[in-house]
């Protein structure tokens, strides 16, 4: 479990069960993982980081600050604007939403771990 590089991934998801599961899976895969329950928490977490994460997994429907609002805020901050965002949503129009948000990719809920990992890997490697 000791890799030379450990890319950082921020998981933004309001449902604690999902959030915990995803965090666990990603950590198992050797990623460094930070989690937030909504957009505002996510912004707070990002502010506290010395360097931006390699990727953000973003849920869309959340209380307090939803995924759309978060994305808007993220794009305003030059240091964060370039961080690829993978939208994770139950919305049937996931692709549409992802396009709207100019997301790097999207994953449809319920999600399969392998799919999620493949997408994350391809975007992290590129970064």
């Amino acid at each position, binding site marked *: 479990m000791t890799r030379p590089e450990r890319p950082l991934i921020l998981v933004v998801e309001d449902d604690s*069960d999902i959030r915990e599961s*995803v965090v666990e899976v990603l950590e198992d895969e050797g990623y460094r993982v930070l989690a937030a329950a909504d957009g505002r928490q996510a912004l707070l977490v990002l502010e506290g980081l010395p360097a931006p994460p390699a990727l953000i997994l973003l849920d869309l*429907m959340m209380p307090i600050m939803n995924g759309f609002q978060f994305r808007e805020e993220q794009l305003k901050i030059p240091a964060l604007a370039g961080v690829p965002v993978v939208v994770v949503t139950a919305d049937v129009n996931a692709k549409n939403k992802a396009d709207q948000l100019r997301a790097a990719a999207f994953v449809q809920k319920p999600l399969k771990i392998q799919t999620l990992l493949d997408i994350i890997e391809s975007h992290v490697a590129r970064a």
Partner: protein
Amino acid sequence: MVDSVACYERDGTIVYVNPRTCEIFGRSRDALEGQVLWLVFPEARDNAFHEVFEHVARTGETRRFEHLYPPWGRWYDNHIYLADERVWVIARDITHEKQAAQRLDILANASRVFASVASEARTGFEVIARHVAELIGDMCSIRLLSLDRKVFDPPLGIWDVQPSYREMLQGNVSIGASEAIGPMVVESGKPFIMSSIDPRAVAERIAPSPRRDLVEKLGIHSVMVVPLKAEGGVVGIMSVCRRLSGTRAPYADADLKLLEELADRAALVVSQWRTLGRVEDARLQLATITDALPVLVSLVGRDLRYRFVNAMYERWFGRRREDIIGKSLEEVMGRDAFLAVEKQVQPALAGERAQFEVRVPYAVAGPRHIRSTNTPYYLEGRIEGYIALVQDITVEKAHEAQLQRWEQLFQHAGWGVAMTEPITHTLIAVNPAFARMHGYGVEELRGRPLADCVAPESRAELAQHTHATHADGHHQYETIHLRKDGSRFPCLTEASAFRDDAGKVIYYAANFQDITERKRYEAELRAAIATRDEFLSIASHELRTPLTALDLQLDGLQRAFERASVTEDRAKFARKVAMAARQADRLGSLIDGLLNVSRLEGRSFPLELESFDLVGLVQEVVQRFDAEAERSGSAVQLHVPEQAPGRWDRSRLDQALTNLLSNALKYGGGRPIEIRVVDAGERVAVRVRDQGIGIAREDRERVLGRFERAVSSSHYGGLGLGLYITNEIAQAHGGSIEIESEPGQGATFTLSLPRHTPEKERP
């Protein structure tokens, strides 16, 4: 007057004549005495006088006789006797007596002849003409003036004693004395006579040039034309003439008198004939007029037998009118029909004009509805019967009945119906429903413009719709209508234009439907559809969330098995299995919730009421959440009285409290949660207060409401089915849920319940 006295020798030699005889003979005594009579007057030799003279001279018998001396046209009463061997002739001119008697004979005879022909009209005049021609002329013609009195009609009768002339005259009806003299006689009313004249002169006098030769050929030497006077005026002329070829002397005044008398008698016939003609004309007119009428016209006698019927009777009863007249009503119309009208005809026979409508089962024409007007028929002051005018109103009656049905439909229709005038658009007729829906009385609306019933802001629109109705003949539209009290309602109108044969709109008719209800249903339907969509969206999100977590955990388990030794990760496995189990629970309760929602939607929400202590239930629920409260970091503080007994559905309230507490823990932000039970007499309240993220004001009511009023799915923050169900449960108990909250300030949910749930609170 002195008699003529003459004395002759037996051979006729004149011995003596007295002055009167000279006068008669037209000679002087000297010229006569000594002469033989038969030599002086040769024409006397072949005469009856000569015969008797010879007889007396021969036998010595005395003779007395009357005779006509044609050359002079005079009658003599002769007394001839022998005395002293000489023949004495004493003669008295009895021409006048003779003529008078003859005239009486002629006239009497003519009267008889004329009377016998009067009824035969046209052919009768031929007989009259013939009679007159034979009496006093060689030829006679009778001509009447045309009805406009301007020209003469062709001769009614014309006769000549000579067959050859007769044929010529009858074949050439224009010949006669009428052309020139006729109008003069008609004009003056006086007779005309020309006698002993040159036929050529006659021709010139009486005929215009084209026919003059023909008239001249007739060789007329005497003409008489007399007026036919009838009905107080001259109606025609009768003319007679004598020809050179005939045996008669030129006309004398006496002939004129006779002709005038004959003409008077002929005129009587004309008059009679004309009267008959008029009667016949009247009869024909009556028949023509009554036959043209589209009604049954009859004259019925007191004996209830037909005296007169028009053509309609023939059509109705299928027999000729000759076959109806004289027959009884019963015979013609059939017994049943007769019984139906028998009583109704009595008033007319009693002198009273009567009108009635009755259904008559005619034997031939079938059952018909008739309207009969019976008018008494008086003759010389006595009621002789009645005149019946019978109209067939069967179709009319059927229409009337139909119309009545339509009228009833119109009057009792649930929809408003109105007719408007095409130019002013004023209401011609409205039904009660129309008046009712606009808050008016029917009479109030008649004559008002339809626009009065339409909201002012919709009136411009109304004009467009009317235009469309005019153009398309039919148009359906929705407008806002205005009641008398100023309130408005949406109205669906279906209008049609009705046109006459020329295509001109005579009126518009429309039905109006108050669609307030429909609009509400539509809104409700739209809301229900939105609710369903929202519900499905929320439900799918709610269901997918634990499913996702469950999936991830199971996937993780599988991967852990694949890559690591089981013993190594015991604790990890235990955690994953526990989490998977939790997700399965979540899914289970979500499905329960969905089933509840479906039941709520179906309006079947039976409460199983029992008496229990609410405080006990609250404590039980809080206890159940101990582990979760610990995990969320929120401490639950309980403030309850000793007890709060009441009658409610225990499991429903358990569900409601569970929802409230689970929400508080979810959004409590890890800060303390306070639960308070307030027992306030008739009502009991449970207040759950958290200090979490709170709810925006506009969302407060919505989170409790139905899904279409809940936060939109993109802003959905997990305020799921729970609150909705909780609200429904509260309402089923006759209670409510209230929310006090500000964003970021936490939220307080108060479940308020009556202590004793009213039975059958919900329909």
